[in-house]
């Protein structure tokens, strides 16, 4: 069985751990430079504040009721690590999918014991970290993802929902679910599926995998099998383009060599930058992760990630590479045989939204246009003359990024001089 563990309103939940008075209040977290809303509490959602909305577009009477905070990536990264640590105490197979989501494999555990186990795990995460999580269980990642959604939305599950791929209940759920709600089905694919008469998740499940492979891609074929309960999707195939971009790869053979990792992280960051610019997006932060081969129990295991905020929302490969390099520097440990490393661009927003928000942006229009031209030229050369024709080298390390973050809470868990004060 596979579980998807998802932290509820993660950034807001992190803030609430150290400021309990925010419990039950409408709270939003803003992107770098306080541009647009990237995370929302349930209460602020209920007030109609949309994801990605520029802060200045929130109606004054709504804004007055809300607490809007600058993003505190040091805190979110540390709390995410703590949550992952607790999950790792319940199964050795934890695959981090994003800062607030992990897939867990419960191979070899008795299926009937899993709901109880996951309840205990959920209680422990809440106790040890203060973060509320929801758990979805099924036999494939796609169904686990749907189960997780139900665990969140349907209170009778008590935070842990299981979906048996063969049950009537699962069928009823899939029959009413629009195909666009299925993990990995992009908006454009959904429109094309409609023309083939496939409108619900159940119809997709019943479609011919071979046929869909011809019309779409191998990923769509796998989604069909996943909906039937067969686990066959790799996480790298499945990042949601509007939310995050992940580029990672396993090394051909295990390596201890730091230069190998630096090179890989640089290539991944550059590739992610291309993808980002292709969708006219901007990223706010970058996560770097490394890990060992979890099936080599004879070697020390190590898995670590870090979130590095970017100097303002950007799609500039140079900034991405610089941040990724700095992140790797923090998590690299000598003497470890690494199997995989990767990077993830986080909290993507689109160009128009962010630029409206950037009133006090240090980078002037001229510089920005010049940088955009440089990146466009770079992409064009790589497109026309083959991947990697023009590559960016390693850049001078920059040790301080001054972001505009007027409402950032202290970095409670990563700075000695910013610890939470408790009154005696």
């Amino acid at each position, binding site marked *: 069985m596979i579980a998807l563990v998802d932290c509820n309103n993660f950034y807001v939940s992190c803030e609430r751990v*150290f*400021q*309990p*008075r*925010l*419990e039950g209040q409408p709270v939003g977290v803003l992107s770098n430079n306080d541009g647009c809303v990237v995370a929302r509490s349930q209460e602020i959602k209920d007030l109609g504040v949309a994801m990605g909305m520029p802060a200045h577009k929130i109606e004054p009477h709504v804004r007055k009721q809300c607490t809007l905070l600058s993003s505190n990536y040091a805190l979110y990264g540390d709390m995410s*690590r*703590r949550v992952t*640590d*607790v999950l790792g105490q319940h199964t050795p197979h934890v695959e981090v999918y994003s800062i607030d989501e992990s897939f867990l494999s419960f191979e070899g555990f008795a299926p009937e014991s899993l709901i109880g186990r996951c309840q205990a795990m959920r209680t*422990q995460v809440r*106790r*040890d*970290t*203060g973060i509320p999580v929801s758990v979805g269980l099924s036999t494939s990642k796609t169904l686990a993802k749907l189960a997780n959604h139900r665990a969140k939305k349907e209170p009778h599950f008590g935070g842990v929902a299981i979906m048996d791929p063969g049950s009537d209940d699962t069928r009823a759920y899939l029959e009413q679910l629009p195909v666009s709600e299925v993990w990995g089905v992009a908006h454009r694919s959904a429109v094309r599926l409609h023309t083939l008469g496939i409108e619900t998740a159940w119809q997709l499940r019943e479609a011919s995998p071979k046929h869909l492979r011809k019309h779409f891609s191998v990923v769509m074929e796998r989604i069909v099998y996943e909906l039937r309960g067969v686990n066959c999707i790799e996480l790298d195939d499945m990042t949601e383009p509007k939310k995050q971009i992940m580029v990672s790869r396993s090394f051909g053979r295990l390596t201890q060599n730091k230069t190998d990792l630096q090179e890989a992280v640089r290539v991944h960051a550059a590739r992610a930058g291309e993808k980002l610019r292709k969708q006219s997006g901007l990223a706010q932060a970058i996560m770097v992760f490394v890990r060992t081969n979890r099936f080599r129990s004879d070697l020390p295991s190590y898995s670590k990630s870090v979130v590095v905020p970017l100097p303002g929302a950007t799609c500039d490969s140079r900034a991405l590479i610089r941040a990724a390099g700095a992140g790797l*520097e923090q998590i690299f440990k000598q003497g470890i045989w690494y199997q995989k490393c990767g990077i993830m661009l986080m909290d993507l927003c689109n160009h128009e939204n962010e630029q409206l928000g950037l009133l006090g942006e240090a980078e002037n229009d001229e510089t920005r246009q010049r940088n955009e031209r440089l990146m466009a030229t770079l992409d064009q050369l790589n497109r026309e003359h083959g991947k990697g024709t023009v590559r960016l080298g390693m850049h001078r*390390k920059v*040790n301080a990024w001054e972001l505009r973050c007027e409402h950032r809470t202290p970095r*409670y*868990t990563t700075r*000695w001089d910013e*610890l*939470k*004060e*408790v*009154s*005696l």
Partner: protein
Amino acid sequence: MSMHLTNLGRVDQFAPALSIPLVAGFVRTGFPSPADDYLEGELDLVDHLIQHPSATYFLRAKGTSMEGVGIYDGDLLIVDRSVEPRPGHIVIMSVDGELTCKKLSTIGNRPYLVAANPEFRPIPLFGRECQVWGVVTHNIHSLAPGFSV
């Protein structure tokens, strides 16, 4: 007088410190050190004090109400959220949305937060929005000027 200078490159001030493992007694020149047999790992205070790393947080004490148990203004509290709170524990409690540090206690079967300073009255917990945030397992207090905690 002239002197020839060669530029070997710039010093990278931001490069991380290079740590070189000391391997005692590896090269056999002369007699082996009799101490070799007694070499052990370094003592790691964090490892020694903290039982549940992912559930442990450091908080900064502010105020005077807990001086009776040796917690002073500015001290560093080690707080474990995974410990089951019991009467007698020094706890971090969220009361009406604010975090406070007191001793968890009962007076006539009712829960109270009690200060360790006679100038502060016990805080009744019944009928209040409150929740234990964590149990204080250690307090670190600096005794020498110039040594911060």
